[in-house]
């Protein structure tokens, strides 16, 4: 078990090196990437089952004991995130291989993609703040190159914004790591959980707030989200989809991990987090309503959805955090799917602009079906996964009488539905205002879509339906993960021993 924990990081990294050596052999690169990511998905599932049975597992890399050495920790929350992210990475890789005129042929797409996968896994497993920083950097460095892969004017412009804002967050991260080390003499999170509690209230609050700003930039919470809707849509679809699904959620993961382990409020909900959550939900969805491009609408929705996750955390009850974890799982699947469908639309018609599209319902009924399921799920319509996730959050809110934020979250759901219907009406109903160039039209007037793009999208749609289908057991799993976060003693014992 201890030996399995580092594998989701080590395997993709090694494969990235091999893949780079194979850079003129596209087929070998594709097979290698697929096989390695499939193996690491299997490993993460084994880890999840093991952690569910035996509690948190810690691996001391190189045999250096915590709190000095590098520690990788898999608790239930980390294991859930590992499984869901490994599944997404695999599905999007198949989509990238299947999509014509993208990315997949670009030199070094495959090695970078594998490094990104390793960085995401490492962020979930990191047991100390400095290695969390390193894992973030591994992931972000790969993402900097992926987002500007084409080197077009638009990509360089938006990529620059993305790189600069991420780099500023990273510098602040190093700063806060240095300050925490100066104050406590350790950066190991399990060790910090005890030592931070002894600090004066002011120092502790300052450090907690700085850490929240650092992860808030990565997670795109209000008021630090402005870079996201600008930079995501210009990248190639598979890249945008994996960024939208995973990268901001890594930020949310770090917020939940540090706020529960290092800076627990002790009693009652955190008003600051609830206020941030409300503002993030509302501003994100209002931004989405104003947009005219499929990918930009979806990008603003990422911001809005992050608010729901922060709301679950802000309630600071086991039910609230369980709701947040469930929401993250549902959101990663649904959001990735929606971006993949957006890519299918662009691939079939050559544009994502609502006012240039129309009538796709008859010309591409399959794409319409693949869109409507995750769209309704995102808005929280029963019986889809979004309904279950929102129900969990709303119930958690009612339990401790936080009516304002619950009411706001329900209103935002309606607005989400409205903007999803805007895409539906613009893309799938009616007739196009100007005739878009139909790149993939077949003889009978229907639009084609490559099988390798449709299959992973369909698989993810099925997965989101499955999440709703097994909502009961899955919620129990999330609740167990939340209970571990609320009561960190086993986590600390697993890392520090005894």
């Amino acid at each position: 078990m201890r030996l399995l924990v580092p594998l989701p990081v080590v395997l993709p990294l090694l494969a990235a090196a091999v893949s780079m050596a194979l850079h003129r052999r596209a087929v070998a690169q594709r097979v290698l990437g697929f096989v390695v990511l499939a193996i690491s998905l299997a490993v993460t599932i084994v880890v999840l089952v093991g952690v569910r049975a035996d509690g948190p597992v810690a691996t001391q890399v190189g045999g250096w004991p915590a709190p000095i050495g590098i520690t990788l920790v898999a608790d239930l929350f980390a294991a859930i995130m590992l499984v869901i992210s490994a599944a997404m990475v695999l599905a999007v890789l198949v989509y990238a291989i299947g999509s014509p005129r993208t990315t997949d042929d670009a030199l070094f797409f495959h090695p970078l993609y594998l490094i990104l996968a390793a960085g995401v896994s490492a962020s979930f497993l990191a047991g100390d703040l400095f290695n969390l920083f390193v894992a973030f950097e591994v992931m972000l460095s790969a993402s900097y190159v992926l987002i500007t892969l084409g080197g077009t004017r638009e990509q360089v412009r938006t990529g620059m914004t993305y790189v600069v804002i991420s780099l500023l967050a990273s510098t602040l991260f190093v700063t806060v790591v240095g300050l925490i080390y100066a104050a406590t003499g350790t950066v190991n999170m399990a060790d910090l959980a005890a030592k931070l509690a002894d600090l004066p209230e002011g120092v502790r609050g300052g450090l907690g707030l700085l850490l929240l700003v650092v992860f808030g930039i990565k997670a795109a919470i209000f008021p630090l989200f402005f870079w996201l809707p600008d930079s995501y849509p210009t990248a190639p679809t598979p890249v945008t989809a994996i960024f939208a699904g995973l990268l901001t959620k890594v930020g949310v993961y770090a917020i939940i991990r540090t706020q529960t382990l290092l800076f627990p409020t002790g009693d009652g909900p955190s008003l600051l987090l609830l206020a941030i959550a409300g503002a993030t939900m509302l501003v994100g969805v209002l931004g989405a309503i104003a947009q005219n491009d499929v990918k930009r609408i979806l990008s603003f929705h990422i911001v809005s959805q992050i608010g729901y996750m922060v709301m679950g955390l802000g309630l600071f009850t086991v039910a609230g955090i369980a709701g947040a974890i469930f929401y993250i799982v549902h959101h990663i699947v649904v959001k990735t799917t929606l971006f993949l469908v957006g890519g299918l639309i662009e691939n079939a018609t050559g544009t994502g602009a609502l006012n240039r599209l129309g009538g796709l319902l008859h010309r591409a009924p399959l794409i319409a079906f693949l869109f409507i399921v995750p769209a309704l799920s995102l808005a929280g319509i029963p019986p889809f996964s979004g309904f279950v996730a929102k129900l969990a959050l709303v119930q958690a809110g009612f339990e401790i009488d936080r009516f304002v934020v619950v009411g706001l979250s329900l209103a935002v759901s309606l607005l989400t539905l409205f903007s999803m219907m805007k895409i539906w009406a613009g893309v799938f109903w009616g007739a196009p205002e100007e005739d878009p160039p139909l790149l993939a039209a077949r003889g009978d007037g229907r639009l084609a879509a490559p099988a390798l793009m449709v299959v992973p999208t369909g698989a993810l749609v099925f997965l989101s339906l499955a999440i709703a289908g097994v909502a009961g057991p899955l919620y129990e799993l999330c609740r167990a993960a939340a209970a571990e976060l609320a009561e960190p003693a086993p986590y600390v014992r697993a890392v520090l021993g005894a």
Partner: protein
Amino acid sequence: MILTLAVVIGVLYALGTYLLLQRNLTRIVLGLVIMGHGANLLLLVAGGRAGRAPFVGSAPESDFADPLPQAMALTAIVITFGVASLLLALAYRSWMLRHDDDVEDDVEDRRIARTNVEPGEK
């Protein structure tokens, strides 16, 4: 000694922040690099007072400098270096494509802001 370093770190952060707020890409890149230097120095200072190189048996343990923040600072320096070169490459690419060095606004955002204002109402 520590006071000197503290002042230097403060100046580096201030300078970095100032440069970061400019509209000029080169200055933004320089600002980030300088701020990164400040952060790396801060890591070093976080280790406490200076001491001897921590080789086992070479000196009494109480004389050693704390090696952990040094290892962290080294890692952070490498990362800053790598990302700074990528930023420079991006800035150069941007200059090649547009022949100017200014940061552009979000084009689509400006367009949407304009379309939503009725002609007549300012």
